[in-house]
């Protein structure tokens, strides 16, 4: 491919590294992530502990890898669920128009009014902090964006001549949505999902930092940071890597999203 | 007043305007004609020292004896509005939507003439009267979107006139307006030029509009001024094949009288091909490749300017057309 946007390369590389670490952690980690060995705590990097150990003697690299897995899983499932539901609602609104559209869009507007992080905190408070509840909360706050994006693009597709022709030949709304609308809005939905992925990672990190996300002993970057913060004077090095992982992942998905958007809409790129 | 000598404007080494030379005497009305991309708009911007930053400017622009081609932006700024002002194509987008009409007109006066608020407002009202806007007092407090297209263009003209410039550059000022309104704006520009003894450079691709407003015209193609002369003569008796093509391409309603409006014209039909990109222009005569009477030498050799008749008319062509047999 010629002339791929630079952001696509950098973003892809960052996401690739983190995703690889997460995948590898499924089959192999340097140490067991739950093993506590207080005698081994605060070890500097060595052949055994590549990135050293934390206050409980756990291997930092292992924690980071499994943390990547947990972060990405939550983001993937949550954005997948929220995106699917939101897109379905948006497609429905775009196809039906009229009252359906009005109601769906109004609901989306309303959900927008509720700040994402606050909503997630509220759910965690009501249902108790857990992996699953973090997924549900993040999935939920992702719905309205996808509703708006898919509805707006679906409506444009519905105005096009070939769709009007398909309607004239008495094809059903579902068939037209499947054959014409969905393929046309796929690109924009994927771009949106990529960008929302970054947001999901940030919210998950904040939830975990507050102790409302992934629960111990499962490692997560956010909780690694909140634990490291209490040891700031003792072992400041522990605050560096989990934060860098979050930044790399969020930056990666943001850049990837920017790059994909430029690919999907070359006019935008030219306009820059 | 304005003396332009060998003015060239180039982008990445490609000349968008190639050693143009002309004068703009006080009170003169000069038409600048050509298809889009011929270099007329950028020439106009250069008259205000507003050529794009990416353009390399060479040659001389002399205003009242002051050499301006390489003048610093600060000096140009003090000339704008006071010596030279410009009216643009789209009257709605050319007016700041968030400012009241009165403030738009008053701002240059407060800045350049150091008028206080009341004096500037009074002059703004007088200017609105001068450009023919009814109920000027009420208009001063309105916003651009509340005015009609023609009124917006008049407001823009009023703002341009606010500091009594000696030259008004009008770049396709009527293209966005409907025919009837456009005609009245053309008449306004002509009248303003006469009553204020103000020079006017009128840029258009519309020959009727140019004929209606100007006394003299320059025809541009590919950055070259290919022909110049008194407007009526030049239209009646074109000597450059491009000018002839332009004239023949306009829709003819009546062979003798010119249409009284400035309506936009469809693309030129009688000239084959289209204007090449800047980088693809021929080195010699820019019109080579599209010219119906092209000779082998044309593409490689830039024709010199020939002076025709008593000296008022010039043409840049190796083989200018013969005089048409027009009844005097």
């Amino acid at each position, binding site marked *: 491919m010629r002339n791929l946007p630079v952001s696509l390369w950098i973003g892809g590389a960052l996401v690739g590294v983190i995703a690889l670490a997460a995948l590898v952690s499924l089959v192999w980690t340097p140490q067991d992530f739950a093993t506590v060995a207080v005698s081994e705590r605060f070890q500097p990097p060595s052949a055994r502990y590549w990135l050293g150990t934390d206050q409980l003697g756990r291997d930092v690299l292992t924690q980071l890898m499994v943390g990547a897995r947990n972060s990405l899983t939550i983001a993937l499932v949550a954005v997948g669920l929220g995106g699917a539901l939101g897109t379905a609602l948006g497609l429905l609104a775009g196809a039906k128009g009229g009252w359906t559209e009005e109601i769906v869009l109004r609901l989306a507007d309303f959900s927008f009014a509720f700040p994402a992080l606050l909503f997630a905190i509220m759910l965690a408070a009501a249902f108790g902090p857990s992996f699953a509840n973090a997924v549900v909360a993040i999935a939920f706050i992702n719905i309205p964006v996808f509703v708006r994006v898919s509805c707006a693009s679906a409506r444009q597709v519905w105005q096009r001549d070939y769709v009007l022709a398909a309607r004239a030949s008495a094809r059903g709304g579902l068939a037209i949505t499947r054959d014409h609308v969905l393929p046309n809005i796929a690109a924009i939905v994927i771009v949106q999902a990529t960008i929302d992925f970054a947001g999901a990672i940030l919210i998950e990190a904040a939830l975990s930092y507050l102790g409302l996300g992934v629960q111990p002993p499962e490692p997560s970057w956010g909780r690694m940071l909140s634990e490291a913060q209490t040891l700031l004077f003792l072992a400041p090095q522990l605050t560096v890597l989990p934060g860098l992982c979050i930044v790399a992942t969020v930056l990666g998905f943001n*850049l990837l999203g920017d790059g994909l958007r430029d690919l999907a809409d070359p006019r935008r790129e030219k306009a820059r | 007043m304005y003396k332009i000598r060998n003015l060239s404007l180039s982008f990445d080494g490609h000349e968008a305007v190639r050693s143009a030379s002309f004068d703009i005497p006080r009170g003169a009305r000069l038409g600048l004609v050509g298809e889009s991309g011929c270099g007329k708009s950028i020439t106009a911007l250069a008259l205000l020292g507003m050529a794009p930053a990416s353009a390399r400017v060479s040659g001389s622009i002399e205003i009242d004896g002051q050499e301006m081609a390489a003048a610093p932006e600060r000096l140009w700024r003090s000339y704008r509005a006071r010596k030279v002002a410009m009216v643009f194509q789209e009257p709605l987008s050319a007016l700041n939507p968030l400012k009241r009409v009165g403030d738009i007109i008053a701002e240059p006066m407060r800045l350049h003439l150091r008028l206080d608020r009341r004096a500037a407002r009074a002059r703004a009202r007088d200017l609105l009267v001068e450009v023919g806007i009814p109920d000027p007092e009420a208009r001063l407090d309105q*916003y651009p979107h509340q005015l009609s297209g023609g009124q917006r263009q008049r407001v823009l003209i009023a703002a341009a006139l606010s500091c009594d410039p000696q030259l008004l550059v009008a770049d396709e000022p009527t293209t966005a307006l409907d025919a009837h309104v456009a005609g009245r704006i053309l008449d306004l520009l002509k009248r303003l030029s006469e009553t204020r003894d103000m020079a006017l450079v009128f840029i258009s691709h519309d020959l009727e509009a140019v004929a209606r407003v100007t006394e003299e015209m320059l025809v541009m193609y590919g950055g070259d001024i290919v022909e110049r002369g008194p407007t009526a003569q030049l239209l009646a008796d074109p000597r450059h094949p491009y000018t002839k093509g332009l004239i023949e391409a306009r829709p003819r309603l009546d062979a003798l009288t010119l249409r009284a409006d400035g309506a936009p014209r469809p693309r030129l039909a009688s000239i084959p091909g289209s204007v090449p990109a800047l980088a693809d222009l021929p080195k010699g005569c820019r019109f080579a490749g599209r010219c119906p009477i092209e000779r082998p030498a044309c593409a490689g050799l830039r024709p010199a300017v020939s002076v025709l008749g008593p000296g008022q008319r010039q043409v840049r062509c190796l083989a200018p057309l013969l005089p048409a047999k027009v009844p005097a």
Partner: protein
Amino acid sequence: MPFLLRRLAGLVATLTGISLVVFAVMNVLPGDPALTILGLDSTEDARAALSAQLGLDQPVWARYLDWLGGILQSDFGTSYAYRVPVTELILERLPLTLTLGLLASILTIALATALGVFAAARHGKAGDWVTMILSQLGIAIPAFWLSILLVLLFAVTLRVLPSGGFPGWAEPLEALKSLVLPVTALVLVQASVLARVTRASVLEVAKLDYARTARALGLSPRRVMWGHVLPNALVPMVTVAGMQLAGLITGTIVIENVFFLPGLGRLMFQAINNRDLYTVQALVLLFASIVVIVNFLVDMIYLLIDPRLREGRS
């Protein structure tokens, strides 16, 4: 005016909707609120006693109306953990959160505008690139990690600023000092997004004809930028600014916990850990309402900026 009335009606509807959602999520969906408060290890009897005490034997809608009616008289119920009216808890901690939020909002807008205009004015040059790369990083940094890094630098290493806690308003200078790092962390993150939007918007407007008209009338680049380009660029900026302020307000929840600042966010966190249902419920409603109202006010700024909107076009 019809625009204003429509927006006001929308505001009331949204606030009502939010109260419904908050009530439903906190009271109805999880099942027994007494269980939420007392936890799974509580006895049946204790839960029944608490239910009666909280009036949970009434139907759901009656409880909702009761709660809403109380709120309208600024009565948020009694905190189960602190045994004092929730309103009292909130009023006690509101000034700190308000100061933090306001300081951060003002600085965010100022910094973002300055950076956005700076980058746009140097479009394509080094200054633009550096600003854009830094802002891309700023968007990706979680505010709480940035806070930790700031603490590491200014509190642990340089020892010029406190690492957390709040000395109270009795010592204004010390109080402000303890807010420096929290505000910085909030501002740097939120201003990154806004600066990018500002830059894009300014570039868009600067291409427009009226910017050229202003230049052609002899206005200086500075005057063109601040008098003509920026006011127009503000229009799209305002929407994003509204969303940024929402992010900033919820950001204070996290930041207060990073720096152990006894504000509403810290209170919320403690209330969640104490299963203090009414306090959590009140705080969620309060934060969400502040966000909605801020966005409403931001919408009103449109009316001030853009005369086209004042005529009732929506």
